[in-house]
């Protein structure tokens, strides 16, 4: 059996003939944007939340990332965040809201608090729930009607997806990090290449990665169209979890560990599809278009139009380049950029901040660049301060903000102005994602930091010794 099948089967409450499975959900994470209508839904039905203890809430999408001690200025955002507090209080749900020491992006806080554990089923009304798969959990995003299902019954009706294995083997070159791996895979299999599948990432390159780096990869499995992605838990996983706030302790830890060690795909397990990549083929990556599958090696050219045959694809390709203000066949290196955003549930963990700090130490950002770095959680922020990372970043001219989704989605106050280019460590370069008319290049924290220093798209390898 595959790892995915082991966990899935262990969570089936019952099967519906010719229909979906009834899947039990261990952990349900919620936030302010996709939960209010679900709360209203169960209230309308006159029922209570079934298992309040399995739910955890935070406010992240809609919160400002400066002056979090002051009331939220935007009345609609404030109303939504207040509504979450009201709903959580009413239904007895644990909330790590604004100003709570555990507050942060929902996919950053679950793992760092030891709430995300191997073998679990985890859902959230947010597509990047796939992040938690890095721990060997089945974690996926759901819509608000499904949030309501889980409120009502702690279960979901789900059809079992097919399984895909993506193996990456070999050693990464200098300047190439996990974000490059996932952007590379995306450029190869496209933004729909994982559709209908649940992906298991494996191979010695993946095994060598830290938990933070693994989360970056699983985070973007949704960008491949996959239902989610996971990685078998190993010593790296167990060491990361051990001792965290809500992780099992003592005898419970021992028992859990014993079970977790059985969580891997059996030798000879059958996957519906397999892709194999070599780490040595991967370079620092960057996207040029308006979906995350439109990526190239940073030293490559934007593809030429003639390389595309399908007429519908051609229209989409041209629309995309037109939006980005780029020519087919152009080179991206040397292109001037005015905005840098380092943050989001893809790259806002302490390791990301350390990576950026180490790189920019003793350097100064280019005059034209607005460089924003946004920690994923209050705990990340605290840790960064404890390590002196905040000073390094501020000296280099970066604006270090308070935790939240920030300029990842153009919903809160942090936006990229119309027509401007932004190198972003987030996960989506869709039209208008970072604000109406904003143009996003997705890249790794290192590539983003290099661009902040030079003011243009830069091959970070040239700046490393």
């Amino acid at each position, binding site marked *: 059996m595959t790892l995915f099948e082991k966990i899935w089967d262990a969570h089936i409450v019952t099967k519906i003939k010719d229909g979906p499975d009834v899947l039990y959900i261990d952990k349900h994470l919620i936030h302010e944007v996709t939960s209010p209508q679900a709360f209203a839904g169960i209230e309308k039905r006159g029922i209570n939340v079934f298992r309040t203890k399995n739910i955890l809430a935070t406010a992240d999408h809609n919160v400002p990332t400066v002056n979090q001690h002051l009331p939220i200025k935007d009345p609609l955002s404030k109303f939504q965040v207040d509504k979450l507090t009201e709903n959580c209080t009413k239904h007895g749900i644990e909330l790590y809201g604004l100003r709570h020491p555990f507050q942060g992006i929902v996919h950053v806080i679950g793992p760092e608090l030891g709430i995300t554990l191997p073998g679990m089923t985890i859902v959230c009304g947010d597509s990047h729930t796939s992040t938690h798969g890095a721990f060997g959990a089945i974690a996926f995003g759901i819509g608000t009607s499904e949030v309501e299902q889980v409120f009502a019954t702690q279960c979901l009706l789900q059809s079992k997806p097919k399984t895909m294995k993506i193996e990456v083997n070999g050693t990464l070159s200098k300047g190439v990090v996990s974000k490059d791996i996932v952007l590379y895979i995306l450029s190869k299999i496209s933004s729909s290449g994982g559709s209908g599948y649940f992906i298991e990432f494996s191979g010695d390159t993946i095994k060598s990665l830290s938990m933070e780096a693994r989360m970056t990869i699983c985070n973007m499995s949704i960008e491949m169209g996959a239902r989610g992605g996971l990685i078998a838990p190993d010593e790296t996983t167990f060491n990361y979890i051990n001792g965290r706030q809500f992780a099992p302790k003592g005898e419970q830890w021992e028992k859990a560990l014993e079970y977790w060690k059985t969580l891997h795909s059996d030798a000879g397990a059958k996957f519906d599809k397999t892709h194999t990549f070599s780490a040595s083929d991967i370079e620092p990556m960057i996207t040029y278009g308006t979906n995350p599958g439109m990526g190239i090696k940073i030293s490559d050219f934007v593809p030429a139009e003639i390389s595309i045959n399908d007429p519908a694809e051609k229209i989409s390709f041209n629309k995309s380049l037109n939006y980005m203000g780029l020519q087919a066949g152009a080179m991206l290196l040397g292109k001037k950029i005015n905005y840098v955003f380092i943050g989001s549930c893809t790259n806002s963990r302490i390791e990301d901040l350390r990576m950026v700090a180490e790189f920019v130490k003793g350097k100064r950002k280019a005059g034209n660049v607005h460089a924003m770095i946004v920690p994923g959680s209050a705990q990340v922020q605290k840790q960064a301060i404890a390590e002196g990372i905040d000073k390094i970043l501020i000296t280099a001219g970066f604006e270090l903000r308070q935790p939240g989704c920030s300029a990842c989605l*153009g919903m809160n106050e942090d936006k990229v102005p119309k027509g401007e280019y932004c190198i972003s460590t987030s996960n989506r370069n869709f039209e208008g994602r970072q604000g109406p008319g904003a143009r996003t290049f997705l890249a790794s924290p290192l590539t983003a930091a290099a661009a902040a220093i030079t003011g243009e798209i830069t091959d970070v390898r040239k700046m490393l010794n």
Partner: protein
Amino acid sequence: MEKFTTIRSTAVPLPIENIDTDQIIPARFLKSTTREGFGENLFRDWRYDEKNNPKNNFVLNDLRYEGTILVAGKNFGCGSSREHAAWAIADYGFKVVVSSFFADIFKNNSLNNGILPVEVSDKFLNELFNEINKNNHTQLVVDLENEKITITDTNSSEKFTINQYKKICFLNGYDDIDYLLSLKDDIEKYEKNSNYLALVNKG
């Protein structure tokens, strides 16, 4: 949910691939805490300029096209899980979306909101775009009972498939929560028998 049987309508063509839910409804319009009123902002940034004037070249502003069926390019609804995308489509008045592929979460969201996602072959999708292009009054018939979509002008048709459980829900107007609530005993039995839950869910 309303019962769904057969829909006969002209269609609105949107021959663009990978339409993500950020295009269907941009994040800045997700601040409402109810399910209503999102139709106004459906495809907001394609539909209106910064001054909120309608963009003439966008199909929803093109008076030639109307109807309750939206026909869109491959991989429709990818990206963010926001159900607001399905609410916006429903609120605008669409009952069916036709594409050659739907992103998983969007597909579930639309099924949960009474919008039927009809998945057709790339070839049939092209045929649809061509016929609608030739004649904007082209009528389509979406017959859920027989899982069939037909272009009435040419009588060309294709079968589509839908999960049988969902089909029953659609035909009868049932919803998932009613069904799940009827399984409470099974769910509690599952919880009692799960050693793992006891380990990780303290309290």
